[in-house]
């Protein structure tokens, strides 16, 4: 996935000279995960910019850069370090179009690696998508595969609205697949039916899609697996139609549960597919605690077995 993202950036930068990349260590170093590797050499220090260590200013300046006609793709180094950006994101990036009645807009992308599973330090394993998804005016996009990563990042860079692009670092290198060299986009706002099925709908996004796929092998049921791809604004239609067909749903996420994206999915399903539901929508989520360090992390992040088990329970409800 790292490579796919890298190619997307390279292609968009080559195509559109207003696209610039900025963040901590994105230049010579190529980013701590090497997503921006080679960009500095190719496009120079004016378009691939190492900034001082100040996340709030990175996003704040990106807003100004966007006003000035650039298309900044800025990076937070890790999930936990996107939090100092929340004020500028919520107070400004998400609202500038609204506040100026369409006169100004924050055409920018904030990308960052998120989630656990890489045996990282504290504040390096969080899944904060709900904070962003709760914020009107932001788009929140999370790819689950290299193919999607490339196509969605291109769409994000071209999107006139501020896009929070979260990269599941656990599958940065774990999932390998051939990605077309040629330019393509994957549309923002559309969920992906990964596998069709008739017994139960399984909804997920990001790295957990991998665990969901693995769970398919552990369950005898015909599962329809939906990868949300865009967390907000959500493609509820695809989800609802699926559940209307299957009558059952499990939502899988890595993030803590309380007021999370899975809550929105469950609340929406029960509202819109009520009469089709044969069992309550089940949420398989992280717990409402800090995600533990690597030694205990495996208990926190649901694995394919836990997912398969929950599918079974919902089927047997």
């Amino acid at each position, binding site marked *: 996935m790292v490579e796919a993202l890298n190619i997307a950036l390279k292609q968009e930068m080559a195509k559109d000279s207003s696209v*610039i990349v900025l963040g901590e260590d994105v230049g010579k170093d190529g980013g701590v995960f090497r997503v921006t590797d080679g960009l500095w050499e190719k496009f120079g220090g*004016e*378009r691939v910019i190492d*900034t*001082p260590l*100040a996340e*709030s*200013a990175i*996003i*704040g*300046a*990106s*807003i*100004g*850069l*966007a*006003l*000035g*006609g*650039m298309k*900044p793709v800025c990076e937070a180094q890790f999930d936990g370090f996107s939090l100092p950006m929340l*004020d*500028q994101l919520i*107070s*400004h990036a998400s609202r*500038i*179009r*609204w*506040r*100026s*009645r*369409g*006169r*100004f*807009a924050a055409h920018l992308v904030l990308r960052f690696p998120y989630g656990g599973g890489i045996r990282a330090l504290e504040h390096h394993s969080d899944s904060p998508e709900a904070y962003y998804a709760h914020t*009107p*005016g932001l*788009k929140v996009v999370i790819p689950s595969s290299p193919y999607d990563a490339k196509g969605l990042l291109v769409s994000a860079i071209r*999107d*006139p*609205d501020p896009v929070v692009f979260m990269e599941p670092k656990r599958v940065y290198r774990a999932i390998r697949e051939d990605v077309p060299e040629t330019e393509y986009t994957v549309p923002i*706002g559309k969920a992906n039916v990964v596998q069709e099925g008739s017994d139960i709908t399984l909804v997920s996004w990001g790295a957990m899609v991998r665990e969901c796929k693995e769970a398919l092998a552990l369950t005898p049921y015909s599962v329809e697996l939906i990868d949300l791809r865009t967390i907000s*604004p*959500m493609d*509820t*239609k695809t989800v609802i139609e699926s559940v209307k067909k299957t009558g059952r749903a499990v939502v899988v996420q890595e993030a803590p549960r309380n007021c999370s994206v899975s809550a929105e999915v469950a609340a929406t399903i029960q509202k819109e597919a009520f009469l089709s539901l044969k069992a309550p929508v089940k949420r398989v989520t992280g717990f409402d605690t800090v995600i533990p360090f690597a030694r205990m992390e495996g208990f926190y992040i649901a694995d394919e077995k836990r997912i398969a088990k929950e599918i079974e329970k919902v089927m047997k409800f």
Partner: protein
Amino acid sequence: MRKTLGKFSVDYLQILDEHGVVTGVMPKITNERIREMYEQMVRARVFDETALKLQREGRIGTYASIRGQEASNIGTAFAMDKEDWLFPSFREDGTMIARGFPMSALLQYWGWDERGMAVPQDVNIFTIAVPVSTQIAHAVGYAWAMKLQKKKVASVVYFGDGATSKGDFHEGLNFAGTFALPVVFICQNNQWSISMPRSKQSASETLAQKAIAYGFEGIQVDGNDIFAVYTAVRDAVKKAKEGRGPTLIECFTYRMSDHTTSDDAKKYRDAAEVVEWEKKDPITRLRFYMKQKKMWTETYERELLERVRKEVDEAVRTYESTPPADIEDIFRYTYAEMPPALREQLEYLKRSVDETKNMGGTNG
């Protein structure tokens, strides 16, 4: 071994003292231009008085008065070129008006109607920033874009004394210094941040010296002296456009009114202090000067006031005759294109307003 690594200093600039006496080097501006400055200051004051009156009458909402800060407001406007961009906080109505922002739109903004912030296309002003200090990074980013595009355009950003305590101030100025960006930072030090006097905001003797932390120049100017403000900002704008980096300008001025119309300064501020500052009024001061130079007569003043009042009254009429927004306006600008989920919410709201219309109550 103990040695001195670096020495720094911070200067103060005044050109016109409170008696209207020239104490420094006058900027090279024509009398015509001085008269325009005076006129804009008067316009700002009349607008301000009108806004305060409208607020008392319930015709606009909470309003932040600029009284006493007209020189800082207007000096900057004149020091900027047409192509430069202004990033205001919420106490620069004067600057905005002088730079072409319609007064009626400003009233609309303060009058509970977000449509007032639809900045006209030919006006290089960014939306008013209410969260203190947050606009600084925007100005920095804009300047950065200009630098990258090799355009000779400066960003000029306003904030208060209280704003210097926020992290956004620090991060923004450090970015500007590091990348040598064409930004002019204007701190209107009006001595108060709501109820906090300047002395309690920071232990630093001046706010201008904070620039030392970022490796560029800071200067304090008499913020009630429009010539000092003009000179400092003009120099800074020139420097910015010549690629010589940012400048921090502390305009030492005073907030004559309450913080906003929701505030009551009597609770925390000594009335004597206000009386002292009254003597330093920026408009009176320029009037003294113009009188000496035979540029001011009672007739001129009367005609000017009359003209400006008419304009302001006209703006009030325009504001108050603006038809209300439609419901869709709530949803319209959240995204470039309205996503299905939002469209559904809009349709729901329309339905709901309809359904509940005849139930009596507060809505619709």
